[in-house]
Structure formats: C-alpha cells, structure tokens
C-alpha cells in the first residue's frame, strides 16, 4: 500500500501466517542447500548463497559507481559497530589474494574514541581501546586511533574545501584512472606508485599512528577532555548534541584522511541507517542536502570524497552475516544509548521508521530508493556560492526571500534573547534581534562583543546548522578552529548585506489599507489552541454559539494557557 506503483492487492488475508521455512524448504537460490536466514520478504538463503549474495552486493555497489581507483588510498571509518565492522571485513576479504576479482585499493582504518562526549571515564575508554586495538591488529591494515578531544587541535583549514575537478562519469573512468596513476607516479607516493601488488594490507603491520605523538597510548590532555565535556554539557538538547558530534567526527576523520594522504573515506552506513538519516535530515531542515547526506558519494569536502559502500545492505543482513561468519566488532555506548524515544529527533525517527517497517515491510527500501533518485547538482551554477561553516553545504538561507514565514523563522533562529521593546529601534520595529544589533554595531552606536561573534558564526551556517546552534547557548566552548575560520571568513567577505532586510511584522503602521476591524472574542475556544491563549477570563461574557465546532481534528494538548 505504501509504495507508488505497487499493485493494490487484496486486503490482507486474515488466515494464519505463512509457514516458516522449515526443513522441507530449500534455499531459493541454489535450490539444494538448507536455508539459514530469510532476507527481504521471504527469500530463504542457505549459508553459502547468503555469503555470495552479501559479498556480491558489496562489490556491485563499488563497481557500479566506479569511484575508487586502483591503488588509491582509502580510509575506512570504523566505529566498532556491526555495519562498519562488516565493511572492514569485506574489504579485508576482498583484498585477499585468492578472492575473485580482488579489490585494488590501499586501505587504512580510523577509529574515533568518543567516550568523552558520552561521559565515559578514562578507564572504560581504555578498556574499549584495548579491544579495538586487538581487532585492528587482527585486521592488519594501517590504523589510526584518534580521540575526539583532538578537535581542539584541528587547524581551520579543515573547514575549507579545496576545489576539485568532479570525478568523471562512467565513460571517463578509464581516463580518470590513468590520470590518477600518472599523478601518483609523479608524486612518487610511497606504497602507491608502481604496482599495487606490493601494498597488500596484510603485509603492513599495524603501527599505532595516533595524532598526538607525545601521548601514544595514554589519555588525551585533561584540559581537552574537560573542554569537550563542557561543550557537550552546554548543549541543551540531545538532537543538537548528536548533530554536533557528527559534525566534529566528520571534521576529525577528514583531517586524518588529509594528513595521511587518503583521498577517499568509506563509512559503514547501512540501508536502514540511511533511510533513517534521510527522514531525520528532512525533519532537521536539511532537505536541500539529502543527496549529499545519503547518496553513495559525498564530494562536498573537495579533495576527500566520502563513499558509502554498505548502503544496499539492510541492518538485518549485516547482523546475520556478522553472526554467521564471526565478524568481530566492539560495542561502544553512543551518546544516545538508552535514551528514551522522545529524547531526540534521531531516536524518534528511528523508532517510527522501524515500527512502520514492521507494518509495511517495504518502507525502508522504499525510502532508500527515493534517496537513490535524488540528484545532486543545483541549478544554474549556484555551485560557486558560499558554503556552510560546519557542514560545508551550499548556504541555502536567503533572508530576503519571498516567504514571510520562512524569513520570520530564520530571523527567530538568529534571535538569541527575547526581543527588546521596539522603542530601542524605532525605524525597524521587528529588528530587535541579533541581526539588528549587529547592524547597529556596525554603525558604531552600540558596543557589542559576544553577540557579534555569535552572529558572525550564525550567519555563515546553513538553515539546519542554525537551528542546531539555537540549542547551543554560547559558542565559546566550540573548538577554536571553528571560531577562527568564522572570523576569517567574515573578515574576508564581510557581513552579508542582505541581513539588513527582514520581515516587518505587525507594528503601529499596519494595516496599510485601512483600520483594523473590530473583533469579538468568540465564546469558546477549541482545546487545541487553549495553550496559546493567554487568558480567557473575558471570553465567558458571550454565550451560546453556533455549536459547529465539532470534535477537534487533532488531539489537543490539555491546556494550561502558556504564560511563560
């Protein structure tokens, strides 16, 4: 029912559920093996066919998109969770000499220790790190473990995307590969030039290449840990915390990739996770960037491209594969572990989508297919516009746009305190926000400091980042590279002149066409708007009514009038 084009079948049968695949059923693929797992809506696979199916999917995704060149250095972002562990394992098996059509790139693994953001003690983190190192040594690729605290040591260049020619399409793949190999040959990069055969992952023993050479295995500097805890404690909502964590993690991985010469980063987002991410991005105001957030490749950082090879595998397949073939993984509690469902938008969306999936089994794949259809290029050369400071997407906020409500919302987002009375700014009554104050500051009438720097950062963010920053009361705990880059950009480009325009809300000058008609307050208000009415003591004067209210269309919250 929920997929367009799907034939509307008969109403769901009320009879007994279809029989489970028992020993009388055979694998649907080879028709002879004993099925061990049911994939999708009833396809039973035997162990070998399932393995072949899984591996084939991984290779097909890489092969179809043809973005990875032979001999290229690829960084695998491993979180310890099942999807990324599976991805690392697939790469390991794919590079093996005996595998058919083996993969031909040079992998490295990065693990980001986020324990400080989740409030873990150093003892727990050390224990996890020990497990992590054990697995990484088994895998054998060059690995890097970085602590999230190292964001405080990042340079502002992380936030700049270097101009990069777009990767060629299918037809130009050979050309692109040739030019890549030529480039590498000229640079004489170690381990890549010459024959790819010499760079088998297993031959290089894992050297611990941590970011901070002075502290190879001990805890990161206490002041950095404390700064990180302070930052995350200051964020008011879990949604904003998760988004901030994601942003910082991305920047850190990007930095590791750039420092060590990796040109691609692979993340282990599975089909289910991407479907949830798509819906969450919609709800967070990132609808314009869905194609980058959930597509196969994400080139907004310029020289480093993020690819998602696991995007066709559902979480169920990943879990079964890991169990059947003993893929090692490490459990690390995340920032939203054990959080109730309503705690953040991410949790909410995850719960909703998984429940809907139980009812309509094609939900996740439908959402995923929609994400496949999203095409990236914006219209008419907008690609050269300014980019968001944090997520590096094109800025999509135009405060002078047509839609009043949107403009007002944007203005509210940049509002940090309750609006001061319009008497302070008589010419522009509604502009009693940060923006207005900053404008005044530039005319030299008022001193400003903190608000100025905050406004400077906010105006360089895209819509969804602005909304997230609304939950961050003070921007001081942010890592210095963000603040430095914001300062640099604002000095270079100046404040956008469009900020001077804003929606002129109701003021003494309205309405322009006549006087305000007199309005009687109706006798009774429906429950759903009770919470917005300030006081209703005068409303009881009028009696009776047309009685045509009817049942409210949505369950209103039982109201106390919101008087705060």
């Amino acid at each position: 029912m929920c997929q367009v084009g799907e034939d509307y079948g008969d109403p769901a049968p009320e009879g007994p559920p279809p029989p489970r695949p028992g020993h009388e059923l055979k694998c649907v693929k080879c028709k002879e093996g004993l099925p061990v797992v049911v994939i999708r809506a009833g396809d039973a696979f035997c162990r070998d066919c399932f393995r072949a199916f899984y591996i084939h999917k991984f290779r097909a995704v890489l092969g179809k998109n043809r973005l990875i060149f032979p001999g290229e250095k690829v960084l695998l972002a491993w979180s310890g969770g099942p999807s990324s562990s599976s991805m690392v394992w697939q790469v390991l098996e794919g590079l093996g000499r005996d595998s058919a059509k083996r993969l031909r790139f040079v992998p490295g693994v990065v693990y980001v220790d986020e324990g400080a953001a989740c409030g873990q003690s150093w003892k727990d983190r050390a224990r996890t790190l020990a497990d992590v190192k054990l697995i990484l040594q088994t895998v054998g690729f060059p690995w890097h473990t970085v602590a999230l605290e190292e964001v405080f040591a990042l340079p502002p260049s992380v936030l700049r995307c270097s101009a990069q020619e777009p990767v060629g399409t299918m037809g130009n793949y050979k050309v692109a590969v040739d030019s890549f190999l030529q480039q590498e040959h000229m640079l004489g990069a170690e381990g890549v030039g010459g024959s790819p055969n010499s760079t088998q992952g297993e031959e290089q023993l894992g050297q611990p290449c941590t970011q901070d050479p002075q502290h190879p295995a001990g805890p990161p500097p206490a002041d950095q840990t404390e700064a990180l805890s302070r930052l995350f404690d200051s964020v008011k909502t879990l949604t904003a915390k998760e988004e901030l964590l994601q942003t910082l993690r991305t920047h850190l991985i990007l930095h590791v990739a750039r420092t060590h010469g990796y040109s691609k980063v692979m993340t282990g987002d599975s089909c289910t996770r991407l479907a949830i991410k798509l819906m969450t991005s919609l709800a967070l105001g990132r609808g314009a960037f869905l194609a980058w957030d959930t597509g196969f490749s994400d080139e907004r950082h310029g020289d480093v491209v993020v690819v998602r090879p696991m995007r066709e595998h559902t979480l169920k397949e990943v879990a079964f594969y890991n169990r059947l073939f003993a893929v090692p993984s490490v459990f690390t509690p995340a920032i939203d572990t054990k959080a109730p469902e309503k705690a953040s938008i991410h949790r909410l969306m995850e719960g909703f989508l998984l429940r809907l999936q139980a009812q309509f089994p094609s939900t996740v794949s439908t959402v995923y297919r929609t994400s496949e259809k999203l095409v990236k290029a914006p219209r008419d050369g907008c690609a050269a516009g300014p980019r968001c400071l944090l997520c590096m997407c094109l800025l999509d906020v135009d405060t002078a746009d047509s839609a009043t409500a949107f403009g007002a919302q944007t203005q509210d987002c940049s509002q940090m305190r309750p609006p001061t009375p319009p008497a302070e700014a008589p010419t522009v009554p509604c502009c009693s926000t940060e923006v207005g104050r900053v404008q005044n500051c530039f005319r030299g009438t008022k001193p400003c400091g903190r608000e100025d720097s905050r406004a400077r950062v906010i105006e360089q963010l895209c819509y969804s980042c602005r909304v997230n920053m609304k939950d961050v009361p003070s921007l001081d705990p942010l890592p210095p590279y963000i603040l430095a880059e914001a300062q640099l950009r604002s000095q270079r480009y100046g404040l956008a002149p469009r900020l001077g325009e804003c929606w002129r809300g109701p003021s003494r000058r309205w309405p322009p066409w006549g006087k305000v008609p007199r309005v009687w307050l109706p006798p009774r208000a429906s429950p759903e708007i009770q919470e917005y009415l300030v006081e209703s003591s005068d409303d009881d004067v009028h009696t009776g009514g047309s009685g045509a209210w009817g049942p409210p269309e949505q369950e209103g919250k039982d109201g106390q009038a919101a008087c705060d």
Partner: protein
Amino acid sequence: MPAPQCASCHAARAALRRPRSGQALCGACFCTAFEAEVLHTVLAGRLLPPGAVVAVGASGGKDSTVLAHVLRELTPRLGVSLRLVAVDEGIGGYRDAALAAGGGRRRAGTSRSPSWPTQTSSGAGRWTPTAGTGRSRACCTFCGVLRRRALEEGARLVGATHIVTGHNADDMAETVLMNFLRGDAGRLARGGGLGSRGEGGALPRCRPLQLASQKEVVLYAHFRRLDYFSEECVYAPEAFRGHARHLLKLLEAARPAQQQLGRAGLGPLTPPDQSFYLEIRNSGHLDTFWIGLPPNPSSVRSSPSPQ
C-alpha cells in the same frame, strides 16, 4: 503574574502567544499579522495576478473557511474577485452538513458580507469509494485526485481563472513526509512550489495558507468567530497520511514549530523561478526536486545531470 501586553500595539492586553515565535499579541494584531503574511505570500509568489477570478475550494472546514475569509479581506488589495466552489465526494456523513449549510452564507462570519456565487460540483455523480473498485482500503488515494478534478470543473463553471485551496503548513509537511515514505518521486517533484502553474490545460492552483501553521489557522478562526465544520471522513483512519500526521505530532512534541522545519527542510521557499536543489529531469517544472528518473521521450532536459 500580570498579563503581558501585546507586543505590537502595546495598547491591548495580549490574548495569545503565536505558536511559532512565542510572541504575545492581542487578537486584532494577530489577525492582522496573519492576513499580512498571507498577503505577502500571495504577492511575493505572484500567485494571483490582479483581475483574476479566483475559485476558492470551500469545503466548510477550518482551512477553507479561514482562506475564504482572509481572501475576502484581501480582495481590495489584490484586485481579484472570488467564487466559492464546494465538492461533494459522495462519502456518507462527511460533507453533508457543510454543503447543506448553503455553501457560503454561514461561512461569512458576520452578517454584513453578501453571499458569493457558489457552485457545488459532484465528482462523477454520487460515487462511493467501494462502488467502482470493490476495495475500500485504498480509496483515499484516488479520492483526492477525483476531488481536484471536480474542483476544476466547478471552477470552470463559475468562470474562474485560478483555484485556491486552503492547505496549511502542516498539510504540506505531512505531504512531503508521506511522499518520501511512499517513495512517490513524481509527487515530490511536483509538489515543491507554492502551487501548480496548471499543466495540460488545467487552471493554475495555489495555496495561500501554505506557510501558516494549522494552529495559527485555528487561532485565526477563533478570534474572527468563524464557524466551520470538522467532521472526519469515515475512511480517514485507514489513510496512509495518518502515519505521516502521527510522525509530525511526535516531531512537534520533540521540537516545537516542527512543521515549519519539516517544510523548510526542502530548502528556502522561493518564487517559482528559483530552485530547490532537487528537480525532476523530465518535468517542465524546474522549481522543485531534482530526481533522476528515466527521461520521458516527450520532454528531456538538454544538459545531462551527473548521476
């Protein structure tokens, strides 16, 4: 605690707080602000040119009642004339009371406004959703399509040049979520702008209330003492939109003013000649989603999009 003063006129005591911004306003200023916003939407989007004859899809529910009222207030400013069109889907118990109320007279709100020319058009006679198809479960899908068709016919009968409907921001956010959940790329591509320019000879349609949240619409109706009917269709519980609505309510509880975010999640709502970042390759409407569907032989974009 003393009641706050209205934030805009500072004369009257505040009677409500706006759902989106929390601003305290008195009833009159809120209604004025609401009307101003709708006017801005219509003007900035160039939705209703002066001289247009506008058919209002008037079902008698809160959205269309408010829409009709607001447009009536704005007609001198916009220079358009209004007609009401009501559609009878033939679903028992749904529109009976609203249509029997005389199409427009009761919805005038106050007695001083004249009754407008109204037209009731039935979608293909009095059909019931189970009659033609034998399945009652999926009738919500084509009910809307047939209703639009009936609206179109009714609008032509009264000689209209534009059609307006009362969809609010909640409706639009639900539509977007629903289309993503159903994977309806075509509708996603078409539904992005502020209205449709009327493809295939259809009348141009728009939704002036598109940026007003549902709560504000109800508040407006409350303060203007507008009557409306709010019976629910008997098939509504089976509709897929219910899931999207439920999701939106959950999101709103997690983060207020969510429907604005959900709507704005598609990118800035700019006039139709500027873009979202998603577009359908084979459609003539370049103001909506970018979605790479297989090219339609009849109209193909000349520049290839990277895949």
